[in-house]
Structures are given as structure tokens and as C-alpha cells.
């Protein structure tokens, strides 16, 4: 019996101790009309057979050199990251509600919070949320609680559309209005919004959905002048190079939220990732999710424990700051080890390499006839390529060359039919860039 260790003798002895004569008798309080004895499930497999079947499935996903980004990025993950994160002591532990038996997890979370505050330049980070998009929804709800009476959020139209969808779902349930902030069609970057009446906060994506950098100082100062909070949406790796949200404008952004996946989390088709959320200390009581603090025991030894739990659902129930119960503990463990392994230097070098590759590829492609770049502004590691034919057709054709060439913007209902969002990371070598150019050239010439 897979994973059930009882032999017949033990089973019999235990049934006798309980005072029943069969396993079925343990369910004698359940009306028999509700009990079923068979279900439409396949028979079980041995571990060996299962491995064979799943290895086949894994191979059915074509291995591709990845030039796609759009919120999920292919990065190198040092071997030590998952070697340690997957240790049973981290992998199979529960939420650290018994702090004496969870100092490992708790200290990791404290270090994670410290790393995120340094990346974002804000004072407090929670112990993570489900993913970047749901984290942004939580940040919006937090801003509404802080601001009190306002009932809407200013949402840029060049925010990743999947993130916008999550805001629609979560905020829509509470009848919170999302006011669109348009972008300049020529530059692809945000225009200063016209109207801020009844809004609690402005979302500023620094890197927007086109891969472009926004004038974050100007936007932050405008929001503060209107009495709005600024919610920065950031890529944690890019923060090794880009201005920290805490330094945006005269007063700094009030909250920073982002997708943590670039920090040591495998792509795995879309998850699990983790969302980070950092804020000013003055707003900590409105921060959703778990938070770890450093303290001492009776003998004065340093220890770590969950704190401000009275904000959370298991105590406040219907009055909690959020219904969230989990953080993405294991993902955060990996991310913490990843950040510690790379350090400031490694993260800066990685960020710089992503950026350099992006400039190189753009230069290579600029020489191809018929292609152009609709947006001229500064970028980090992602930009829009305008093709003289359908970007979806090009993307599909390049699959045959072993390349995932990017994301056609039309799949997001943005841009022109020829627009392809292309991303480069440190994983790509110069030879990969040349392969991309040559393959694209041949696809365009075959037209």
C-alpha cells in the first residue's frame, strides 16, 4: 500500500483496541447512503512506472531557448539554491506557529524581509504573498484601508494585462473602481493622469508591459501632490540596477510590490512563484500576510517569531486585513538562498548582463529589413519588436528553430499585429542572439 505502513497484524490489533471489527466500522456514523466504494480513477502505478510516464510527459514539452518574459523570466539558478531549499527540514515543515521548533524557517523569513527592504528601499516587508499580481491586489486593498474613504485605484493601461485581470477579479468583488491611466501611444510610457478624484493610490509599473522604464520621480511626486499613495510595481532583479522605490520622487513610493520569480524560482509553466510587498513602517498594521520579528527568550537568547498576528484571519476572522493564510514559504526560502548566494555583486552583474544582451540583440535585429522598434525609450531587458507580418505566425515558425521568440502583444490584446515582446536574460550567450537573428531572418525571407 503506497505510503501506508500498517501490516495486517497491526491493523487487526489497532481495530481491536478501538473496539470495532473492520475498517468500515470506523465510519458507522456516516449514513450508508452517502458512502461510495468505487470511483472513476485509474489504477495506481509503481514509482518506476510513474517515473517513466511522467518523464515522457516532460519530454513532450519541447525544449526551447527562451526569449519570452512578460512577468516570468528564465534565469540561472545556482545549484545550491534548491539543494538546500528542498532539504526535508524546509520542504516538509509547517507554518512556523511553534517558534521554538521553527527557528530555521523563521530566521530565513527574517533575512528575506531584510533583503526585500534593502532592494526596495522601504522599511517593512511581509513574508510574501501568492504571486506578484495577487500581491498587487492586496497592496490596493491596503491603500484603500489606509486612505479610508476613497473608493478607486488609478491603474495604468500599460500594466501587464494578466495583472489587470487579477485586480478586476479581486477588487471587483468589493465594488472598487479601477480608473484607467492611459499611456502615450508614441512613447509607450505613462501620461500624468488628469483626474485623481476619489482615488486612493496610483500604481506605477517600473518596467511596464512594453518593457519600458517610466519617469517614476515625476509620477510619484504627482501622486503625492494629489494626496494619493504610490504603489510601485517592480522586478526585484532590475532593482539591482534601477532606482529603489523608496527613493522615487521627493518622498519615495509608499509601497512596493512585485513578482519574486526572478530570484531563484523555476518557471514551471507559471507557478508557484511568490509576491513580495514592502511598505513604510507607519503602515505596518494595514500590511496583509505574515510578518516575522526578532525577539529574545527568557534566557536572553535571540529568537524569531511571527508577529502582529492579530491582523490575520486565524484571529481576526471576518475583520482580518486579508483572508490570506499562506505565504509562499518554500519559494521564499529558495529566493533568500538565491539572493544570499549572488549577493549585491552577483545581482548587479546578472542585471547588467540581462541589460547588455538586450542592447546587443536589439542592435543585431535593427539590421534586418522590415523590422522596427515602435518605442525608443529606455528599457531594462525587454522591448517590443515590430515585424512586417503577424507576430504570432513568426513566434510559431520560430518554435521549429528551437526558439521561444517572445510574446505576441496581440495575445494580450495590445499593440499591433506585428508586435512581439522580446526578452533576454543572462542565460543567453552571444551565439544564441545570432541564432535568433538568423532564424528570424529566414522566417521573414520565406514570406
Amino acid at each position: 500500500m503506497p505510503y501506508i505502513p500498517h501490516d495486517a497484524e497491526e491493523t487487526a490489533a489497532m481495530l481491536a483496541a478501538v473496539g470495532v471489527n473492520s475498517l468500515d466500522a470506523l465510519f458507522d456514523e456516516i449514513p450508508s447512503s452517502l458512502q461510495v466504494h468505487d470511483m472513476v480513477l485509474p489504477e495506481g502505478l509503481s514509482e518506476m512506472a510513474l517515473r517513466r510516464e511522467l518523464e515522457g510527459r516532460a519530454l513532450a514539452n519541447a525544449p526551447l531557448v527562451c526569449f519570452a518574459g512578460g512577468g516570468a523570466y528564465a534565469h540561472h539558478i545556482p545549484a545550491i539554491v534548491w539543494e538546500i531549499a528542498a532539504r526535508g527540514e524546509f520542504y516538509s515543515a509547517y507554518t512556523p506557529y511553534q517558534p521554538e521548533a521553527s527557528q530555521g524557517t523563521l530566521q530565513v523569513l527574517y533575512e528575506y524581509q531584510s533583503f526585500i527592504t534593502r532592494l526596495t528601499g522601504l522599511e517593512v516587508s511581509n513574508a510574501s504573498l501568492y504571486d506578484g499580481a495577487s500581491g498587487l491586489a492586496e497592496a490596493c486593498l491596503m491603500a484603500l484601508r489606509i486612505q479610508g474613504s476613497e473608493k478607486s485605484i488609478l491603474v495604468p493601461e500599460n500594466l501587464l494585462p494578466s495583472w489587470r485581470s487579477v485586480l478586476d477579479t479581486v477588487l471587483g468583488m468589493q465594488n472598487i473602481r479601477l480608473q484607467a491611466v492611459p499611456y502615450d501611444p508614441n512613447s509607450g510610457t505613462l501620461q500624468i493622469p488628469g483626474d485623481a478624484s476619489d482615488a486612493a493610490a496610483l500604481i506605477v509599473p517600473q518596467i511596464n508591459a512594453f518593457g519600458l522604464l517610466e519617469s517614476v520621480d515625476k509620477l510619484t511626486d504627482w501622486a503625492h501632490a494629489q494626496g494619493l499613495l504610490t504603489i510601485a510595481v517592480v522586478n526585484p532583479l532590475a532593482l539591482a540596477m534601477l532606482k529603489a522605490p523608496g527613493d522615487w520622487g521627493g518622498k519615495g513610493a509608499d509601497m512596493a510590490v512585485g513578482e519574486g520569480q526572478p530570484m531563484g524560482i523555476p518557471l514551471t509553466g507559471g507557478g508557484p512563484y511568490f509576491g513580495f510587498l514592502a511598505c513604510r513602517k507607519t503602515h505596518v498594521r494595514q500590511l496583509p500576510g505574515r510578518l516575522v520579528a526578532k525577539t529574545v527568550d527568557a534566557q536572553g537568547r535571540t529568537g524569531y517569531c511571527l508577529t502582529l498576528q492579530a491582523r490575520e484571519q486565524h484571529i481576526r476572522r471576518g475583520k482580518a486585513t486579508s483572508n490570506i493564510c499562506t505565504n509562499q514559504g518554500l519559494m521564499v526560502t529558495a529566493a533568500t538562498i538565491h539572493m544570499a548566494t549572488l549577493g549585491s555583486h552577483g545581482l548587479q552583474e546578472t542585471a547588467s548582463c540581462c541589460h547588455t544582451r538586450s542592447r546587443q540583440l536589439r542592435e543585431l535585429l535593427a539590421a534586418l529589413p522590415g523590422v522596427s522598434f515602435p518605442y525608443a525609450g529606455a528599457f531594462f531587458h525587454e522591448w517590443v519588436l515590430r515585424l512586417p507580418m503577424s507576430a504570432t505566425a513568426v513566434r510559431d515558425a520560430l518554435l521549429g528553430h528551437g526558439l521561444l521568440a517572445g510574446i505576441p502583444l496581440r495575445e494580450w490584446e495590445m499593440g499591433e499585429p506585428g508586435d512581439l515582446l522580446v526578452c533576454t536574460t543572462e542565460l543567453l550567450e552571444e551565439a544564441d542572439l545570432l541564432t535568433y537573428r538568423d532564424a528570424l531572418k529566414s522566417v521573414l525571407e520565406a514570406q
Partner: protein
Amino acid sequence: MSKIPESLRYSSTHEWVEDLGDGRYRVGITDHAQALLGDLVYAEVPEIEKNLQAGTVCGVLESVKAAADLYAPIDGKVLERNEALNDSPQLLNEDPYGQGWMMVVAAESSAYAGLMDAAAYANIAEA
């Protein structure tokens, strides 16, 4: 046995009220309440100018593992808040009738007169 000073008046929701004269009343939580709640780590006291309605929720008290609503013991308007509680919520535990006071409100003397005296509150607190 918790302390219940004779000089104060009390609500059934475990707040005490002290008559400061001139229609001003100081409000806090009782020794019995702080003992029930345990080590307090945060007090959310209503803003100055806020109008209070007796028996309704006007703030929150948080201990390590519990959160309790703070009720207004009396109709009135908030005049002062004890800002010392922001940094030292433990004052609520250590000195609930002194340095752990929460707010001063403007109220009618008739509302004050309607509150329990120490003997009546003792019956509730010890029940």
C-alpha cells in the same frame, strides 16, 4: 482579584470613566480587562474630534494572540488621546488606571451618572 477604584465609574464592556470636571471625562480599560487580554501590543484609539456612541466599537486592542474591540463607554466627543500608548502599549497592562489611560472625551454629566459604580462593576468583573 482585580483592582476597581471606588472613585471611578464603569461600563459593562470593561471601560472606566473618570470625571475631570467641566464636562470632560477620562477613559481607559479596567484592570480586569487588561488581565483578560494579556500582554497588549497595540491600541487603536479613536481620532480627536470623533463622536462616540456608547456601546459601539470605537477602536481595537491587540495582544499577542488576540484582538478585542474597544467600546465607547459613553456618548461624547474625543478631546485628547494618550499618544504614549503608541510606543508603550504595555502601559495599559502596567498602569491601567494611571499612565495607561486612553482618551479624554467631552460628555454630558447625565451619561456619566448612568454608568455603574465600583460595587456594581465588581459584580460583573467577578462573575
